[in-house]
């Protein structure tokens, strides 16, 4: 397969965000991680009431204001980008914010990742051999959210699989990831291993398997990602 051709068939970040957005169910409370996951918010269908939680104490976070002049330095996403408060949103302090997280109130979290293992282990906070590191709320959120939805490119820049048999990067939380959304596929983490649920248009199951370390089972209802 020609690499150039394959790259052209990979989902864009925006297409991935759109697919993740579809996953967010009406009435859910969802935490959105920093980086790529922030793209998800504008793609949530308007007829769905998905409530966003930001760990800095915003329950009911809305998108950035249309007018830059309306940006408020005290109303930011966890990634310190402009945000807003929806009508009926509320502010809580940091301990109360993580009480929501660990108390099981997050229906889902959308997080980036360096690696996901076939048992659902998540690595997303520290690069290999890094000194120090920045953990932020990743460990609390990965442990607390009912569903941990990972959004990442399928392979590293060097072409190495990021869906692996066992993590080589430092673990964020064990057995936490429930579904993986990449630029090639949607993969469910189940008690019986990884299940390939959806393929990006033009990508084959064999291509996904070749870019994935553990064995994938094909879903009985394997389908194409709507883009």
């Amino acid at each position, binding site marked *: 397969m020609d690499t150039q051709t394959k790259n052209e068939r990979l989902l864009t970040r925006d297409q991935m965000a759109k697919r993740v957005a579809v996953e967010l169910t*009406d*009435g859910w*409370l969802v935490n959105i991680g920093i980086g790529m996951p922030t793209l998800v918010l504008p793609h949530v269908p308007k007829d769905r*009431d998905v*409530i966003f*939680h930001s760990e800095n104490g915003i*329950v*009911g976070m809305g998108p950035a204001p249309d007018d830059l002049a309306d940006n408020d330095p005290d109303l930011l996403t966890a990634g310190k980008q402009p945000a807003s*408060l929806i*009508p*009926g*949103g*509320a*502010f*809580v302090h940091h*301990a109360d914010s*993580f*009480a*929501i*997280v*660990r*108390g*099981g*109130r997050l229906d889902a979290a959308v997080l980036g990742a360096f690696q996901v293992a076939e048992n659902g282990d998540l690595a997303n906070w520290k690069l290999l051999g890094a000194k120090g590191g920045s953990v932020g709320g990743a460990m609390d959120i990965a442990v*607390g959210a009912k569903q941990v939805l990972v959004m990442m490119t399928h392979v590293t820049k060097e072409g190495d699989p990021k869906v692996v048999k066992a993590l080589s990067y430092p673990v964020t939380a064990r057995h936490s990831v429930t579904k993986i959304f990449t630029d090639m596929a949607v993969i469910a983490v189940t008690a019986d291993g990884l299940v390939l649920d959806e393929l990006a248009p033009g990508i084959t199951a064999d291509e996904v398997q070749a870019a994935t370390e553990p064995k994938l089972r094909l879903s009985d209802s394997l389908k194409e990602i709507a883009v």
Partner: protein
Amino acid sequence: MKNKRVNTPAEAVAGIVDGATVMVAGFGRSGVPEGLTDAICELGVKGLTVISNNSGTAKTGVARLLLEGCVEKIVCSFPRASESGVFKEMFDAGKVELELVPQGILAERIRAGGSGLAGFLTLTGVGTELAEGKQTMEVDGTEYLLEMGLRADVALIKARQVDGRGNLTYRKAARNFNPIMATAAEMVIVQAHEEVPIGALDGEHVVTPGIYVDRYCVFQQEP
């Protein structure tokens, strides 16, 4: 948007089953959702474990639940008070079980349950008979008790205001156990004095974010 509003206390408590663990907020008679406790009596469920600071004033609230035979056990800090004759009589007759918990520990155990913490270490109760059977742990030469988080199937909450998202405010010291119990149950049911439009509550003044609330009814309780 999820519709959390129901029309009556009866609709609000529908589905509570025999044997459920139910948190009932309030301190004395202040902040007790009596519309909801009355509705549970009328529902006629049995074998409840009730978590509440008091055991009910005269024949209201938890006292009525006791009187009507709904309660098997009560987890409580101050069950025997001059105003709590119903509990006293039933407890002395062996008709209700008691787990006595210091008030601050009861509050903190509920907060821990709502915050996803398994337990916490405290000095309260060390060396007392309420420490019996509890695990202790020494930290820097001091002995602490390990107290466990507490959750319930249902929490019954009395609020002052509610909006369509379930955001709540409370009235003065009627706040007491309400905000913490609202975090610590699978089903959080609210009796609110009044409903206001979404957006009418300042996000800085909301005490319980609506995400905690499953159902609410508007019910103006007799004083």
